Structure formats: C-alpha cells, structure tokens
C-alpha cells in the first residue's frame, strides 16, 4: 500500500461494524477501511436489504452481513460503528450505539432536527464514546490546503467566500422527502456551511432560498442558495444543487477573498485524469478517496491515542443549526439570526 496510507499498528485493531451499504459506504468507507486494515478490522456490514449487505460483504471481504443493525450495536466484539444510513435514521441508531458503548463515525448531517443532534452528542458524552461526524471537507486535500493558507495569513483576513456544490439528483428514494433527507440544504450545503464555519468562525445571520427544480423530489428542495453573515463581519454565498442535468460532473468551487489577497479552487480545472470511453468522458483526481482515509485515520487516532480530530461533535450541531436557519429563512423570506434557531 502507498506510503501515505501506512500507519503504525497499536494495541489491537479497532473492530468495526458498518451500518449502511449505500453509495458512500461502497465508494468511500469500505475501500478506506481496506486501505487501513492495519488499524481496523471490519466484522460485519448492515443493509436493510440482506442481499445488498451480502454483496458488499463479499466485495470487501467482510466476514458477516446482516439486515438487523441492532445486532451490530449489541455485539461485544465491535468497538466502533460507522453509521451511513439515510439521514432520518441517524438519531435512533447513533443514540443506541452510544448507549451500547460504541465509538461512532456518523455520516453528515448529524441529524435532521437540532434537538436530535444535541441528544446524540449528549448521549455520546454521557457514554464516554467518541463521535466523529463525517464532515469530510475537513479532510479534503484542497480544503485542508486552503485552510492552511488562510491560517498562515496568505490572503489576510477572510472577507468574502463563495462555494458551490453542484450535482445531479443523488437518486435515492429517501432523498425525495424532506422528512427523510432534509433536502439539498441539510444534506449537501451543510458541507460548505461546516467548512466556512471552520474557516470563518460563527455565523451571525443568514438569508436563504430553496427551490424544487426537477421533478425528482416529492417535497425536498433540490436547489438552495444562501447568504451567510459571520460574527467576524465576513460574508459568504453558498449554493448547493441536485438540479443539474444528466451528464453533469459533480462540481465544487471555493473562493475566498481576504484583506490581502484572493484564492480560488475549482474542481472543474484540477482534475488529473480524463478517460474517454463508450462515448462518455470521465474526469477525476484519483486521490479523492484520500479524504476518507484521512477521516478514518483521525477516528482511529482519537480512539487509540486520544488525539482530537479536526471536528468536534458540537461543531456538527452548529452546522446543522445554520442549515436549518437557511431553511427557516427561505420559508419566512426574512433574514434569520442563528441565535434564534432552537
């Protein structure tokens, strides 16, 4: 395995149960666990479809598959769980996992309601388990590098931020419903919300708009834009969309103007590979998996050596609060103060 992925083997391997076998698990978590097999031992994978669970288990050499997530939480030979189920199930599973004493890597958003998010974090604190909410931009190479540049003062104090996250409809049934996914604002924009808070500090107030553009959703907005005003008096424009047409490549853009300079990074211009095959062009930067590996490594370091990861659970709660403020603003058509969102 590549040098950057190699870690020292400590006490023993962290025994993991993977709860969920959807896109992010197959694309990111299982491959990353395989890369980090010196730190993790995957015991079991769950999907509510047993066939799907078995396929994932076969593909990634996981010894067991199940369609009963509670059986994973109850297992004494599991130290930690990765929860990557639909957003609306996060709270129930995470709370039970915490009470069972499992460390948790929880996909974003932490939950769909603020009180659920608070409950998850408090339960983890009470149980003394580690909760890493997978705001993966905090591990994403260009986003990490941008933060380093900001912290080193390269562009002075940040003043104006722009961030896009533009994609097709993710295509799962639960994304179609607001009550299951939170819509594109809570599911997708939350990445850039969390990242901009990491860079700029707390948000003071927001204004947002949301739309249903395609017929793909039932009541979830599939396009959302927001203006954020930070306590530092910086401002940000964030846009997240599931409304782009078929064939559109997943696009991220980040720009930060500061008192002494400007930086921009655009994934449309930073791809290192393009493959033309069967009439389709596929562009990528192959190291994209690295972010998930780094995220899991941080999780392992936290569990094994108590090294704090770059995201505190309460920050994930904060990101959810801002996302909910954007939704509230778009419903009221008014500027919403974050302190008023409870």
């Amino acid at each position, binding site marked *: 395995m590549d040098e950057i992925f190699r870690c020292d083997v400590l006490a023993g391997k962290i025994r993991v149960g993977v709860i969920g076998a959807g896109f992010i698990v197959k694309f990111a978590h299982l491959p990353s666990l395989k890369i980090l097999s010196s730190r993790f031992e995957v015991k079991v994978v769950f999907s509510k479809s047993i066939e799907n669970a078995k396929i994932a288990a076969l593909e990634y050499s996981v010894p067991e598959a199940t369609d009963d997530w509670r059986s994973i939480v109850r297992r004494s030979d599991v130290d930690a769980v990765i929860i990557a189920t639909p957003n609306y199930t996060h709270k129930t599973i995470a709370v039970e996992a915490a009470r069972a004493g499992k460390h948790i890597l929880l996909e974003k958003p932490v939950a769909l309601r603020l009180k659920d998010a608070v409950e998850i974090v408090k339960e983890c604190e009470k149980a003394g388990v580690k909760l890493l909410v997978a705001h993966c931009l905090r591990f994403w190479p260009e986003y990490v590098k941008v933060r380093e540049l900001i912290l080193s003062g390269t562009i002075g*104090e940040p*003043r*104006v931020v*722009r961030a*896009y996250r*533009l994609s097709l409809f993710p295509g799962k049934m639960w994304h179609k419903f607001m009550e299951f996914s939170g819509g594109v604002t809570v599911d997708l924009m939350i990445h850039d919300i969390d990242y901009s808070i990491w860079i700029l500090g707390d948000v003071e107030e927001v*204004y*947002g*708009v949301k*739309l249903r*553009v*395609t017929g793909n959703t039932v009541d979830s907005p599939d*396009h959302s*834009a*927001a*203006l*954020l*005003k*930070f306590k*530092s*008096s*910086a*401002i940000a*424009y964030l*846009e997240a*969309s599931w*409304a*782009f*047409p078929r064939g*559109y490549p997943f696009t991220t853009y980040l720009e930060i*103007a*500061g*008192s*002494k*300079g*400007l930086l921009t990074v655009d994934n449309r211009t930073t791809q290192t590979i393009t493959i033309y095959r069967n009439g389709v062009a596929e562009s990528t930067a192959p190291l994209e998996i690295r972010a998930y590996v780094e995220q899991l490594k941080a999780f392992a370091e936290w569990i094994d050596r108590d090294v704090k990861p770059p995201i505190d659970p309460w920050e994930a709660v904060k990101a959810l609060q801002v996302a909910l403020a954007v939704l509230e603003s778009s419903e009221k*058509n*008014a*500027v919403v103060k974050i302190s008023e969102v409870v």
Partner: protein
Amino acid sequence: MSRVFRVVMVSFAHMHAYSYARVVKELEAEGKVVLEAIYDDNLERLRRVSELYKPKRVYGDFNRLLEEGGVDVAIVASENAKHVKYTIPLLDRGIHVLVEKPIATRLEDAELMVKTASRRGVKLQVAFVMRYHDASHYVLMRIRELGKIYSITSTNHGKCPFEWFIDPELAGGGAIMDHVVHVADLIRWYTGEEFEEVLAFTGRNIYPELRVEDNAILLGRLRNGAVFSIDCSWSRPVNWPTWGDVYMHIIGERGAIFLNAFNQNISVADEKGFKWVYYGPDADRNMIEDFLSVVERDEKPRASGIDGLRALEVVLAAYKSIREKRPVKILELYT
C-alpha cells in the same frame, strides 16, 4: 453607415472612455465617424486625452460645447453622478447619447433621462456592453432551449478601481453601484422577466479605508419566481492575472448553461509577473457600431434608458435591503 457622424466624447473620468475613444478613432480611420469634440471638466485630463485622440475641437466648458453644437452623437463616460447633468442638455438639443453604466445614481435622474430622450425623439442607449459580447449574446440565443428558468447565479468581480469610484457622492455607492448592473441587465435580457425582490449582504470591507462598500452579494427573485444571485465584489487583488469576471450558471427545466465571458486568455509570465492576456471579442466596438446604426436607422437601442433604469432599481433595492436588513421589493422604491 452612410452618414458620417460627428461624435463628442463627454468626459474621460470612466476608464472605459479610453476604449470607446479607441473605437471612435478606428471608425474615423474607416471614414465612418469624426471625433468632433472632447469635453472634460478635468483640464489636465482634457489636455492629455486631446493630445492622444486629436479631436477637432476641445472643450473645458460644457455650456460652450452646447452653444456651439455641431455634433450628432455623444458618448458620456463621466463619473456616475454626473451622467444626468451632461445627458439631459445633450438630449434636449437633439443629440443622441450613449451613456456609461450605471445610467445614473438616483431613480429620478434616470427617469428624467428616459423621459427627455422620449420627448425629444432622440436615442438614449446605456453602455451595457455585455449585450455585445459574443459569448453573453450567445446565451441569449440558446437560453430558450432550457425551457423555464429556475435559477441564475452570477458574478461580476473586479479590482477596486479607486479614484472617484470610491467617492460616495461621485459614484453614488461602491461595488454595488459599479458592478451589479451589468449582470442584472443580462438576467433581464435573458429571461424577459423583471426583478421582484432583492436581499443583499455586505461584509467588512476588503479595503478598510474606503467610504463605500467594496464587497456585496445579492440574492433575490424575479417576478416569475426564479431566484438569482449577484456577487459584485471588488475582490480581485491588484496582482490578479486579469481584471475580473462575468460568470453565470443558469439552471432551467431542460438543462443548464455556464457562461464565463472573459475566459479567453493567454497565460503570460514576464519580468513583471504573471498575467492573462485577453483575446476575446471586442464588445466595445460592436456596441458603438450598433449605437450608430440605431441612430442612423432610427431603431430602438439594444439597451435603452429603460433598461438602464431597471438595472438601477436592483442597485437601489440592494442598498435599501442592506440599510433595513430585509428583502426589498422593487415596487417599494416607488412608494
């Protein structure tokens, strides 16, 4: 163009005037126009540009220019707040005017300009040069294919222009007054829809010494419910490789269009550093030629005084929104 128009350039305060004068000189060389006169209230600048462009007559006194007349069309590129005081008397004397954007800094000034042109039956065109840029014009030709338009995200970034642009009285504001109107006009042009409502945030200034805002972002709605955003910030540093951008992405029911109008550049590194050298369309030339053709054929300008007024409404609604911290309807400007 069969007629040889006598052109007066009124003020070189706005840097675009130099490009307009360059076009006029090109057209003069082709026998299509004559640079009849230059007026400027800054006598040092007047001397400099007169030497550069060699008009037939030179005026430091606007009234004398008006008295002596002998011009057919005027290009007004003064400070924003002075547009009205030059444009009205020119229009009143039957002189067609191409005025730099924004049309004016106050609604009542813009309205008076529109009414005067209409009453006198002369052309008032606003220098919405993006209507003459090949790429942004191409969007107009293709946008129908998207069907219903849901969302338009746009930026018109630039470098801080300093000089009078940062004088609240002469400029009428900062980055919002300077940069919102180009893309606001494109949004109206593309959709055929009017603006309904605007919310704007401005942050702490990039240049703390300025008395005007140097950054702002607008988020709002058109009358048909489509959402739009405009980032008008002067956020490009002095040493950025190009002056700024005009960018849009438009989402419709049947697809999306991306516009990056000033993306045609050659990357150049020399002893002074790194920069982009633009090789895209000469929109200024297209615009001035069309203006003369509109006058010649007595047609409607591609970007009229009304278009200038509508774009100014967005600017003024944005300022009101910042003062009152709430979304502002365009109609509120008239109550």
